[in-house]
């Protein structure tokens, strides 16, 4: 008899918990629906990257040793390789004004400290469309304002070497994105801040270069298939 009374008394707390919990669950469905989007946006990081210090968390900067003296066979056709964000994938050279700088795929203060940055929304060197590279005026692109029409610009990558010729000198406001769009013309846009002695400048200066020569190091896939 005692046992018969003990069991319901032990079950009752769990029953009450289930009833109250269930009621609260049902009551919270509508409020949850309202905030679900915000919660998903706010807590969407499944990698759970925990920032350890100031800066962009998870940015993996990769330095690459680019061969600028490749002397092997080259092909006029090939595929530009999209690098990983934060990777140094190229070296830019303009002998006329002594520009020689590493180029990183990405943007932001951390990468700009290390070299030029190829905007990820543009094309990589040798790719289809506009390749946009920027760098700081007081470091890597200090002499960009000295380039003249007709100057040669070379970009060396792991997959090829690309030669451009300066065709237009440009000036635009930092808010103007006209020159930074990918577009469908195979060109190279280089830009930096206007050389200001003090304080920040909203003006950007640079040049547009036309692609003159593509030299890919690897055989294009189509040719390989033909040979087979």
């Amino acid at each position, binding site marked *: 008899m*005692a046992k018969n009374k*003990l069991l319901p*008394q032990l079950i*009752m*707390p769990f029953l*009450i*918990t289930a*009833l*109250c*919990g269930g*009621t*609260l669950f049902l009551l919270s469905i509508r409020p949850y629906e309202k905030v679900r989007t915000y919660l998903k*946006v*706010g*807590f*969407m*990081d*499944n990698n*759970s*990257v*925990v*920032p*350890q*210090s*100031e*800066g*962009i*968390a*998870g940015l993996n900067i990769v330095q690459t040793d680019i061969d600028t003296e490749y002397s092997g066979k080259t092909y006029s056709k090939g595929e530009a390789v999209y690098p990983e964000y934060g990777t140094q994938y190229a070296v830019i050279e303009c002998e006329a004004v002594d520009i020689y700088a590493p180029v990183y795929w990405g943007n932001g*203060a951390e990468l*700009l*400290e290390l070299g030029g940055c190829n905007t990820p929304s543009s094309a990589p060197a040798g790719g289809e469309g506009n390749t946009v590279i920027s760098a*700081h*005026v*007081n*470091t890597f692109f200090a002499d960009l304002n000295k380039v003249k029409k007709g100057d040669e610009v070379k970009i060396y990558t792991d997959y090829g070497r690309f030669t451009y010729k300066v065709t237009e000198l440009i000036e635009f406001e930092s808010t103007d994105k006209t020159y930074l769009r990918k577009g469908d013309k195979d060109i190279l846009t280089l830009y930096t*801040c206007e050389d*200001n*002695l*003090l*304080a*920040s*400048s909203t003006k950007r200066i640079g040049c547009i270069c036309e692609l003159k020569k593509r030299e890919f190091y690897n055989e294009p896939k189509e040719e390989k298939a033909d040979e087979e």
Partner: protein
Amino acid sequence: MKNKLTLVLRIIVCMLMVFSIIGTCGVIIADRVYTSEYLRSQVGRTDTYENAYNSLMKCFSDNYSISNIPIEVYESSFTSDWMKSAVDEKINSFFEKREAEIDCSETEKNITEYFESYAHEAHVIKDETYEKKLDEAITYAQKTALEQADVYSLAVMERAGISAKVSACAALARKYMWVCIATVAVLVVLLILLKRSLYWIGTALFASGMIMAIPTVIVKAEGLINKFSLKDYTTYTLVTGTMDSLATVVMMTGIIMLAVGVVMIATHLIIQNKSKSAA
């Protein structure tokens, strides 16, 4: 028949008590948390004063490539003590519904001095462009510093209308806090009148404790708080630190209530057993 009616009544009162206990805990926590004191204590606990200062200096250091103003100029303008008082003032002014009064005069003085010494050395003419650039540099420094001092992004919340909603909820919680406490008291009296109060109050505490503890244990065990998407170091540490502290408070409250509930139920069963044995 009477026994069954009493049981149903006890279950209903017990369930109402569970909701009242959870509500009371909620309004008490909201009352304690939505205060400038609590927010400031979290800033201190998560080293946010220091992080915000480092973040500010990094902004200026990164901007050197554009501004040509060395970090030393900013370091002499903004100290870690300045950042602490600015962060506190931002929080206090938000709760007191007034404009924050933060002294940035040192910045103006130091940047002007730097510009003047530079102009003197480089023989720069102090024309309209010089004045414009000086003004831009001062405005940028002050704006950046004040933005970094707003560690809880209170200005953004105010612009988005979130703060008004949260304030209204907190005011409502404060208004009804005593109503909730009184409701719990009334329900306790009711359970006493319905007899076997020790067991039923214990059951209510047990259920409330479970409902509060289980979700927070899941949140902590799954590391849901660490999935916070904003990876800015200062914001991330502050937000996740504050949320973690809140989850701990709720979880501990739940566990304590659960334990008290279990003890009350056990005591009731022991007393019941003893009285039956004596009979």
